[in-house]
């Protein structure tokens, strides 16, 4: 990560292209976010961890390690290819896990927790494991314990010190933390030294650990998370000076004290006698070295070791002089066993200046408190520790311009305000792009929003030039006023005759609210987007595709036969879709009613493939047939698809149901995915394929069928009411203040008290649903909309031509019309 940051910083500022940068990466994959490693077990996929790709100016060599360094000839010998010459060499080799040399430490079943490959190995071993021991109760150890927990292995944490996370927090915080994580199923053993790893005499595999007091913990997995050591072997063997506990000795410019052509940054460096094991100081070193190489005079600014994290869902934060080591420092402590939180502020001997603090259980005031370190306290310390609502009020305005808002990237309040004042940025993404604030751990994003608000920047939420309100607001207007037409809505709450942005948005809102009204009737016909307008998907040559609903992908041979007959009769191209149904392509506009008459007569109905609406609920075969299935996934998928069919939404909606953890229905790539467990159903939300694939994240576990349906009703209706136009569920959840946790509060715990209304709205939709194609066939006025020409209604358009490819009809290649030839 630090090497990646260095390459980014250097290439971004090296306007004159003075350096050709070669990056050697021992791992076969490009740099990824190790800090978020355990999220891989919690719904994130590897792609989400990947750091932004380095530009074309960087020659990135993956899977190539540096073997030896010849400083006299300025050459690096690598594991593949000829030796590389260098003008300047930057060592960002990081660190490797420290494995205490206890007996059995290298037995099969022992792991470290550092790379994606380590995670893969743990994942494989976890399949046959019941319990695991993590040696080390620090930050990394608790992350590893969480990983084991998510793999359904009972985690034990063995910590030598008297309490957890002894580097960051004190005994009071550690005690509360231990209680909170024990509630989550983690067994904590503090003040405990591991004397040996026990092994099975037959297989030689790990069977447990033994502690100094004789306690034996049975386990099939041992993960060492007992600290790290700098990887400085390359430097040592090249004769570079290293620190007393390792790390290439560098000055404050990050330059080796031995060789002016060699630099070291991150965990591989020893600066001011310290090796920093956090990413923030590593980034600062990367920036320093990059600046120096380009002729700048930057020096390492010193490290802020403040941290705020969520470990096993528990907030932990530590900042400034957290342990009160400054002379005369006073501590104010708030222990709240009811809210289950612990807070400590360390203040100067005259109680006027904040020096540091610790927060466990609730760290919501961290973003406000940390920048106050070194500043005069805006209120009495006890009130600052009070619940966030009051603490935050002292907030942002009291901070000096020099206060750091984003500690990952060392961005000050002054820099952010300057970016806003100069017009460089007027939104959170804008601030991220021009200052990098909020691009690290993300904990300052809420503060960025507040800063924009207090700087008077109103982020434009206008839908388009015709409406100044957002889609969600327009939805509420439509609910409150009962308006059912575009003209009235535009005259009273907007202006003009609309456009291809606002008209489909209004069409979708009206369709969500009034399921019983046909979308082609009256003025609403003019609002429908390309596909909705003729209840079919327009293809590139102006013909349409037809997709009948096949709920859950289950279909009888008789119905398959009907689809085949219709396709043959109308010469339609057929293809199986990704949503387990059949696409019939190449229908002319005027053929659609005849095709649908055949299909509805055979019992088919609209599949809404053309709508921003529920598409399919995909399923695997489930326990009816499958040897591994534990629940009836097909039955549930059909029930859900029929329940939510026709529901118009801000964007398309897809679902999936898998009958066991093997996940053959790929449910986690859907907006809502359900995976069977022995005890019920796990509900995942916010997945999608497409341009930016996302895995759905776990919302609730082990639900009964009725509770699952209740929560899904709420989820879908809440999305329909509050998302922006064309915002899939993933982006909707991401944009929500508080994200998935907030969503869970609203639709599972009903903190806003709206669940009753959401369920009623869904019940109305289900009651009023009618197949909209059948409704077209029954109404001559609607049928008239399917004329090819107003002056020749049944005449096929002579400009639509086909050719044959692989035995099926496809569009004839089109004559390029651009630019249009003058007559």
């Amino acid at each position: 990560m630090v090497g990646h940051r260095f390459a980014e910083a250097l290439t971004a500022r090296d306007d004159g292209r003075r350096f050709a940068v070669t990056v050697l990466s021992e791992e076969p994959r490009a740099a990824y976010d190790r800090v978020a490693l355990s999220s891989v077990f919690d719904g994130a996929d590897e792609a989400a961890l990947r750091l932004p790709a380095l530009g074309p100016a960087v020659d990135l060599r993956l899977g190539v390690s540096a073997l030896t360094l010849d400083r006299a000839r300025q050459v690096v010998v690598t594991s593949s290819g000829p030796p590389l010459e260098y003008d300047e060499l930057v060592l960002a080799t990081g660190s490797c896990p420290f494995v205490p040399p206890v007996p059995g430490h290298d037995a099969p079943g022992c792991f470290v927790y550092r790379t994606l490959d380590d995670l893969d190995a743990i994942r494989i071993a976890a399949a046959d494991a019941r319990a695991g021991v993590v040696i080390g109760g620090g930050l990394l150890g608790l992350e590893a314990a969480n990983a084991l927990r998510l793999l359904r292995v009972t985690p034990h944490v063995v910590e030598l010190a008297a309490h957890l996370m002894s580097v960051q927090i004190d005994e009071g915080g550690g005690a509360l933390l231990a209680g909170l994580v024990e509630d989550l199923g983690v067994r904590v053993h503090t003040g405990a030294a591991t004397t040996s790893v026990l092994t099975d005499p037959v297989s030689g595999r790990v069977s447990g650990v033994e502690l100094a007091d004789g306690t034996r913990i049975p386990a099939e997995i041992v993960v060492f998370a007992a600290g790290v050591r700098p990887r400085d072997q390359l430097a040592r063997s090249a004769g570079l000076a290293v620190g007393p506990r390792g790390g290439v000795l560098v000055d404050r410019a990050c330059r080796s004290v031995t060789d002016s052509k060699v630099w070291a940054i991150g965990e591989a460096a020893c600066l001011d006698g310290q090796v920093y094991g956090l990413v923030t100081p590593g980034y600062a070193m990367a920036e320093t070295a990059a600046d120096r190489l380009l002729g700048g005079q930057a020096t390492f600014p010193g490290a802020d070791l403040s941290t705020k994290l969520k470990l096993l869902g528990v907030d932990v934060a530590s900042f400034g002089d957290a342990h009160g080591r400054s002379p005369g420092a006073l501590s104010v402590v708030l222990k709240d066993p009811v809210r289950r939180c612990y807070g400590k502020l360390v203040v100067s001997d005259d109680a006027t200046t904040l020096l540091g603090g610790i927060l466990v259980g609730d760290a919501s005031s961290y973003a406000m408190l940390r920048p106050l370190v070194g500043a005069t306290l805006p209120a009495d310390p006890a009130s600052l520790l009070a619940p966030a609502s009051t603490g935050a009020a002292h907030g942002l305005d009291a901070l000096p311009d020099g206060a750091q808002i984003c500690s990952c990237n060392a961005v000050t309040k002054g820099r952010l305000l300057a970016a806003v004042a100069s017009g460089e940025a007027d939104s959170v993404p804008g601030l991220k792009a021009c200052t990098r604030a909020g691009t690290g751990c993300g904990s300052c994003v809420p503060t960025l929003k507040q800063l924009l608000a207090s700087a008077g920047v109103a982020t434009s939420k206008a839908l388009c030039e015709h409406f100044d309100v957002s889609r969600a607001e327009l939805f509420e207007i439509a609910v409150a006023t009962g308006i059912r037409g575009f003209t009235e809505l535009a005259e009273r709450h907007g202006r003009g005759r609309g456009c291809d942005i606002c008209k489909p948005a209004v069409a979708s809102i009206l369709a969500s609210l009034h399921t019983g009204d046909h979308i082609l009737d009256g003025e609403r016909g003019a609002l429908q987007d390309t596909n909705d307008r003729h209840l079919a998907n327009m293809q590139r040559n102006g013909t349409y595709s037809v997709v009948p609903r096949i709920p859950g992908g289950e279909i009888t041979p008789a119905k398959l036969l009907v689809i085949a007959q219709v396709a043959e009769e109308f010469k339609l191209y057929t293809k199986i879709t990704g949503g387990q149904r059949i696409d019939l392509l190449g229908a002319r506009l005027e053929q659609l009613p005849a095709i649908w008459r055949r299909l509805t007569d055979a019992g088919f109905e609209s599949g809404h493939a053309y709508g921003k609406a529920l598409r399919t609920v995909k399923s695997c075969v489930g326990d009816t047939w499958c040897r591994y299935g534990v629940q009836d996934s097909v039955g549930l998928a059909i029930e859900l698809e029929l329940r939510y069919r026709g529901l118009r939404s801000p964007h398309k909606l897809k679902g999936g149901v898998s009958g066991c953890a093997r996940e053959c229905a790929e449910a986690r790539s859907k907006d809502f995915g359900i995976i069977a467990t022995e005890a019920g159903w796990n509900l995942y939300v916010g997945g999608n394929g497409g341009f930016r694939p996302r895995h759905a994240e776990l919302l609730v576990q082990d639900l009964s069928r009725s509770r699952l349906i209740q929560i899904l009703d709420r989820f879908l209706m809440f999305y329909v009411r509050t998302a922006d136009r064309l915002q899939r569920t993933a982006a909707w959840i991401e944009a929500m203040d508080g994200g998935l946790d907030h969503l869970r509060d609203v639709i599972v715990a009903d903190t806003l008290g709206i669940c009753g209304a959401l369920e009623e709205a869904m019940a109305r939709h289900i009651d009023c649903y009618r197949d909209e194609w059948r409704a077209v066939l029954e109404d001559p006025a609607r049928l008239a909309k399917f004329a090819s020409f107003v002056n020749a209604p049944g005449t096929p358009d002579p400009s639509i031509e086909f050719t044959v490819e692989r035995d099926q009809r496809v569009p004839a290649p089109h004559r390029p019309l651009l630019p249009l030839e003058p007559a």
Partner: protein
Amino acid sequence: MTISDLRQAPARALALVPVADLATEQGAAVLLADGTSAAVFLLHDGSVRAVSNLDPLYGAPVICHGIVGDRSGSPTVASPLGKQVFCLRTGHCLEDPRMSLLVFDVHVHDGVISLSTGGNNRETACR
């Protein structure tokens, strides 16, 4: 339609369509004698506009199915395929000056629309 209606129509009328056959802001395709088509629109203010129906980018006869609206008060239609927005008065694409639609002259008499290509319109539309 009477003989006098036809006399009112321009000499080079390409097609005749009753206004009553159109729905407001929902375009319709009109088949022309040469096998091409025009997209005819009845706007909210009661006026009628007609442009060539072929989408210049895809070569598909679909402009009549586009969403009608306005940009700063000028009537527009958006291509249903690529969503490029065209001015219904000039035929110009607001996003890409290389593209434009042909604009037909429209005369409405006694509830009947007649389309023609007149004057220098063709050159203007295709600059």
